[in-house]
């Protein structure tokens, strides 16, 4: 049965694809309302979500993230990792062209990867830290590593390794790479992805047009994308963005507040899309022995951290904050992350156990905890009120401190907090990024919690050079178990990406990594 099921599934999907192929219509435009504008959509310099979530629209990577999260071929038709894990060889497809009609060759690949791994340039160079050399011989690309790196295949499918045109970029005006990048993008850049950027009015609007030379085929056997144009409007205010959609002036609006999901889902003209994401909402706990002011920190005791986790009714929070669109966390990483291990929700609500744990820690008399939240965030305000009520029976007196985003970042880095709210979405289709961020002490003191677990650190270091996928999987399983038990976080929930789309648009996707994918979107009216 186990073997038949995938075959049956495959057959059904194939049939579905075959029938829908007749339905797809080409041409037309869609208008997309965004919460914030892009600045520079350069694979290397993109440093904010509104930038990096747009890169794949303009620049294609050698490998791609498939719809099920697996790595599939991109500009490179094949890829192979040597037995020692130190050499990756890839074969470029033949006949690849940039949007201006020039050939996409090995030289462009070497140029793009060298730029992506140059630490003098963008913030993502570290992802390619293991790369020693990139060479091209005809269609054959060779990436040589200093040491084995199991994440490298995922990185070659990550936006920062998008392939840019060497000749056109070098022709752009400017002395430094930064200046060239600015001139290159201001002039309407030559691209390798499904679209070209026709215009961009900072803070207001942006226009993507179909790249006629894009390599991928649609279901009708002709090159993607189906749409001729995608127009972007920047509308920062949630209420206005939704009004614009309801008035029919745009075809889709992103970042719908969860409180409005039910209402928009009931609108006969709209589809309320809740795309599976790698986004988690969690709260780092300061695990240091002493607080910033020198006083003793009760949260340093693992029992206290576990108690607070047990005393938190995640299902109630999911109802109150995400209006039932979220899911409880089962691991430090979202369930959509590769190598995720989490058979069941962490710390199911159990106030009795919480009470017992606090008694064991000698804190039945109660104590005070400060929750640092984002000022103006309705979600954080709800979260605080709910936690305050849930924890009060334990004698935990929860106080609130409201700050803006950079202040929260500063407090996190200075270790000047008890517990604070935080969110995360993966940028890379690999668990190393989120695991290093949340748990590895040497990177960021385990998301600023000060949690320093030797076994976890050693496992993380080993997993980063592990060439055997089975062993790496085991290491990740063990790390996730340790992390769950040690509870350096208040585990809250996973949330989807909520995008409301007009019924006349099909095929738009926001990927689990957040990227806006218009390559297979089409107009049905």
């Amino acid at each position, binding site marked *: 049965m186990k073997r038949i099921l995938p075959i049956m599934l495959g057959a059904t999907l194939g049939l579905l694809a075959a029938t829908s192929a007749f339905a797809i219509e080409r041409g037309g435009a869609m208008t997309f309302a965004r919460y914030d504008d892009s600045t520079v959509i350069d694979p290397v310099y993109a440093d904010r979500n509104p930038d990096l979530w747009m890169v794949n629209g303009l620049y294609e990577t050698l490998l791609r993230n498939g719809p099920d999260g697996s790595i599939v071929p991109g500009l490179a038709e094949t890829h192979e990792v040597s037995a020692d894990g130190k050499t990756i060889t890839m074969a470029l497809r033949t006949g690849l062209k940039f949007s201006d009609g020039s050939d996409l060759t090995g030289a462009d690949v070497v140029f793009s990867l060298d730029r992506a791994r140059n630490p003098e340039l963008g913030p993502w160079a570290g992802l390619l830290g293991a790369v020693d050399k990139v060479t091209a011989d005809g269609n054959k690309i060779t990436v040589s590593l200093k040491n084995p790196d199991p994440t490298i295949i995922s990185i070659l499918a990550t936006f920062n390794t998008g392939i840019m045109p060497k000749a056109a970029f070098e022709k752009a005006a400017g002395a430094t790479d930064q200046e060239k990048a600015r001139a290159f993008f201001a002039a309407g850049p030559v691209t390798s992805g499904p679209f070209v950027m026709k215009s961009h009015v900072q803070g207001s609007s942006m226009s993507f047009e179909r790249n006629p030379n894009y390599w991928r085929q649609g279901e009708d056997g002709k090159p993607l994308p189906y749409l001729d144009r995608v127009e972007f409007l920047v509308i920062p205010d949630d209420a206005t963005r939704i009004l614009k959609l309801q*008035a029919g002036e745009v075809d889709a609006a992103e970042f719908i507040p969860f409180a409005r999901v039910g209402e928009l889902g009931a609108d006969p003209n709209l589809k309320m899309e809740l795309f599976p994401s790698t986004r988690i909402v969690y709260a780092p706990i300061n695990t240091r022995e002493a607080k910033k002011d020198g006083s003793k920190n009760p949260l340093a005791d693992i029992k206290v951290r576990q108690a607070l986790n047990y005393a938190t009714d995640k299902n109630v929070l999911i109802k109150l904050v995400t209006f039932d669109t979220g899911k409880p966390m089962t691991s430090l990483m979202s369930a959509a992350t590769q190598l995720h291990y989490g058979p069941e929700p962490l710390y199911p609500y159990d106030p009795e156990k919480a009470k017992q744990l606090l008694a064991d820690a000698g804190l039945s008399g109660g104590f005070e905890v400060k929750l640092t939240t984002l000022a103006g965030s309705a979600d954080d305000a709800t979260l605080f009120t709910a936690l305050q009520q849930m924890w009060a029976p334990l004698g935990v007196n929860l106080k609130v401190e409201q700050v803006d985003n*950079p202040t929260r970042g500063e407090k996190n*880095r200075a270790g000047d907090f008890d517990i604070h709210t935080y969110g995360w979405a993966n940028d890379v289709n690999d668990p190393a990024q989120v695991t290093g961020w949340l748990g590895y002490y040497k990177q960021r003191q385990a998301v600023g919690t000060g949690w320093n677990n030797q076994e976890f650190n050693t496992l993380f270091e080993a997993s980063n050079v592990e060439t055997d996928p089975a062993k790496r999987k085991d290491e990740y399983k063990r790390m996730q178990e340790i992390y769950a038990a040690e509870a350096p976080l208040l585990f809250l929930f996973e949330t989807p990406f909520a995008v409301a789309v007009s019924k006349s648009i099909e095929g738009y996707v926001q990927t689990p990594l957040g990227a806006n994918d218009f390559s297979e979107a089409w107009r049905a009216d």
Partner: protein
Amino acid sequence: MPSLSYLVARLLQIIPTFLLVMIFIFLLVRLLPGDPAIAMAEAKATDAQLEQIRHNLGLDQPLPVQFLVFVKNTLTGELGRSIMLKAPVTEIILARLPTTIFLALYSVVLAIFLAGPLAFLAASRVNTPVDVAIRGVFQLGLSMPVFYIGLLLLTVLAAQLRWFPVGGYGKTFLANLYHLILPALSVALYTSAIILRNLRASLIEVLDADYVQFARAKGLSPRIIMTRHVLRNALVSTVTLLGLSIGNLMSGTLVTETVFAIPGVGRLMLEAIFARDYPLIQGLTLTFAVLVSVVFLLTDVVQSWLDPRLRQS
């Protein structure tokens, strides 16, 4: 008209104002917790990477050095590069400023056209139902926050009745008049409420003044009494108020531009603060200081034209 020496004196007074604004804004943005590096890295960078970013931005230099660079740059008209938008601050501000000025002027004109005639009507029929009704409606405008009025107008007039677009900005002058009518109106409702109250009160006072009574007794035509005696005197305090409210309006654009998705300098300021974009915040504050100074200067000029007594000092 005011004399040239009066204008020069007023212009010279602006210089110390600017110096103070520069010092204050330079220190204030740096007193805020968090810095551009932290805001920019969206918390994902390691401490070493942060140090690198700070170094690249010159934030690891001592404060006096940073201040001198800032003053030197400003004097040469160079406001630095925006950290958030990765482009020269002057260029960014110049691209966004016309939108905000357009919106501000548009709402002032609307406010004057709304408040002026109605104030006359109310003042000439003091305590009649007309007067009470006019005051009542504008009291409502005064007691609702601008963003709320804005959302109400958007929901009813734009999303439901579809008379106007929901936010955004046009490309031509006429398109902008159409696109910006709701934001201009929501700001104007607030401003006109203030003007109306003031103008109505001064009109009532002036209409009752001895010299107006005398003019009437002299047998001057009501038209001449109105323009030469009543209006000219009643407007003095209203012009002051209008000048002040344009200053307020600049801060009002922070909210209005966000609600209506207008790419002006107000919304830019808000974004710059959240990104701790020091050069951009500094540049924008200076821009606001210049704008407000110009408006106040114009107010003084108009006033001294209306009231010759002010020219002596």
